[in-house]
């Protein structure tokens, strides 16, 4: 696009007007990278005492002892990664099912209400989902889901131990509820961006609707769907309130999914308000910095993948 040819005919004053206008717009656009830069600098400054004291050891030790001022985030990283992975394991197949339903199968009049309902799920405050988790989901997991899993799959170390209801499994479930709207929104947008010609070609060869989806739509949208997964992963990694209410908050590394664990956002939310002592606060900010770097990397990766399919974030307006 750029500056159209007609601009040459315009008077000089208008041209300086154009330049000023362009400068103004550019300044507004540049505000975003500027804000991000400032944020990162501010966080590094606040975390500096802990960075100096613990350095990279912070990432590979498991002791979190505020009384003795010894801090390491490995068990939080473990809990964050495992609960998020579990959430994706549940949310991605379900979300893709919904997306295929929305973009390929559903009659047009149903599409808007369903995608609207899915979006509403994302709008419920996370503290509310957390309390629902504690009072409804946790008892169900303890009395129904975990004993059933233990009875059928108990030979795996993943499903051993006393069924407490609080732990990685429940955290994964609640996270999946919270990230599924993102998987649906992005992958529906990606699938709908697949050119109609692709589908028509498959259908012309006699493919059924499912075969069209499998052979023409999904391969075309593959990298975009991968992007949706990373985006959901970034959301899951950063989710706080709901997770901390159901994960059990024990800084440990256990194989069993029934075992309680802890996540980085949960420890920040739990301890930041009551933290006293500079090193303690700095350690929490350092943990936040680790989280920020991970989520930013995930998001960047996701966008690169999505942008290979869709130009522009058509899913935001949708």
């Amino acid at each position, binding site marked *: 696009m750029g500056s159209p040819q007609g601009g040459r005919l315009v008077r000089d004053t208008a041209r300086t007007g154009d330049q000023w206008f*362009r400068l103004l717009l550019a300044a507004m656009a540049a*505000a975003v990278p500027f804000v991000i830069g400032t944020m990162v600098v501010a966080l590094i400054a606040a975390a500096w005492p802990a960075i100096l004291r613990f350095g990279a050891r912070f990432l590979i030790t498991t002791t979190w002892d505020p009384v003795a001022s010894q801090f390491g985030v490995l068990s939080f990283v473990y809990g964050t990664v495992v609960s998020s992975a579990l959430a994706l394991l549940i949310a991605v197949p379900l979300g893709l099912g919904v997306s295929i339903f929305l973009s390929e199968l559903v009659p047009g009049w149903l599409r808007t209400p369903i995608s609207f309902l899915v979006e509403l799920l994302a709008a419920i405050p996370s503290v509310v989902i957390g309390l629902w988790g504690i009072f409804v989901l946790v008892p169900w997991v303890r009395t129904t889901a975990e004993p059933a899993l233990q009875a059928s799959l108990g030979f795996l170390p993943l499903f051993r131990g006393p069924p407490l209801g609080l732990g990685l499994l429940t955290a994964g479930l609640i996270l999946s509820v919270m990230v599924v709207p993102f998987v649906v929104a992005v992958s529906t947008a990606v699938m709908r961006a697949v050119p109609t010609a692709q589908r028509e070609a498959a259908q012309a060869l006699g493919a059924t609707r*499912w075969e069209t989806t499998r052979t023409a739509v999904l391969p075309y949208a593959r990298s975009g769907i991968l992007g949706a997964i990373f985006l959901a992963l970034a959301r899951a990694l950063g989710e706080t309130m709901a997770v901390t209410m159901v994960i059990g908050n024990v800084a440990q590394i256990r194989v069993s999914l029934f075992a309680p664990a802890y996540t980085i956002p949960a420890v920040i939310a739990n301890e930041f308000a009551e933290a006293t002592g500079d090193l303690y606060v700095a350690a929490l900010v350092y943990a936040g910095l680790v989280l920020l770097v991970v989520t930013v990397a995930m998001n960047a990766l996701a966008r690169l993948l999505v942008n290979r399919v869709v130009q*522009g974030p058509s899913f935001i307006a949708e």
Partner: protein
Amino acid sequence: MDPRYRLRRGMDQGMTLVCFLCTLLVLTPLVLVLTFLAQTGLSALNWDFFTKLPGAAGEPGGGMANAITGTLILIGLAGCLGIPIGVLGGTFLSEYPQTQVSRISRFAADVMNGIPSIVMGLFAYVLIVLPLRHFSALAGGVALGVMLIPTVMRTTEEVVRLVPQSVREAALALGIPQWKTTLRVVLPTATAGIVTGIMIALARIAGETAPLLFTAFGNRFWNRSILQPIAALPLQIFAYAISPFDDWHRQAWAGALVLVAIVLVVNVGARYATSRQVRLR
């Protein structure tokens, strides 16, 4: 019928059913959570809830009038900051898409969408609360406004790009300078889409608690100045939810219900606006 064809058709119907079941399964928690909210909160929803200040612990009555208006004011303040920057920045991304600034900003906006919201709160705390030495509606508005920028910017970019090139050319051919063309011809054409994007972005920030804790701070009374602390629905919900009193719990859930309703209304409104536009096109 050819058995192979029957198998393929069975597969087709089977997968349709699976996808339908997925949809049902995904929507189940929504129904369960909303029922939970209604069960616990509906009894506290009455006229007082919308017109009165919070009551004291241990006595029934009182409402969240200040928190509801507080949330609306905070959204307004966030809009003052986020909407102009978002819309103008988005226009730049669309009208000058290949410049270095555009590429970096576009990428940065996408990345910023994923930054945890508590970090935004800390940012506003360092930037505004510490220098001014007190919590304020302004700081809360800035925290939310910053969160608004990337969403509004990217939506605007996309919508403005949809404006046909011929419209721009027609204006320029009449001798109108480019800045005027953009402001008076291109942006008005895209207004409906931009407004939709803005509404959805506003609805998203309405429920945020974390960025307000150390900025807007909360207020038991009516706010009298944007340099004073201000109440907000999510903050009030949070404070009541962790209290030991049943009556406050009910009010917290009622507040959550109102918050979800606000988001719902905004979403429906925005959708209605866009669907009208599509039909008119």
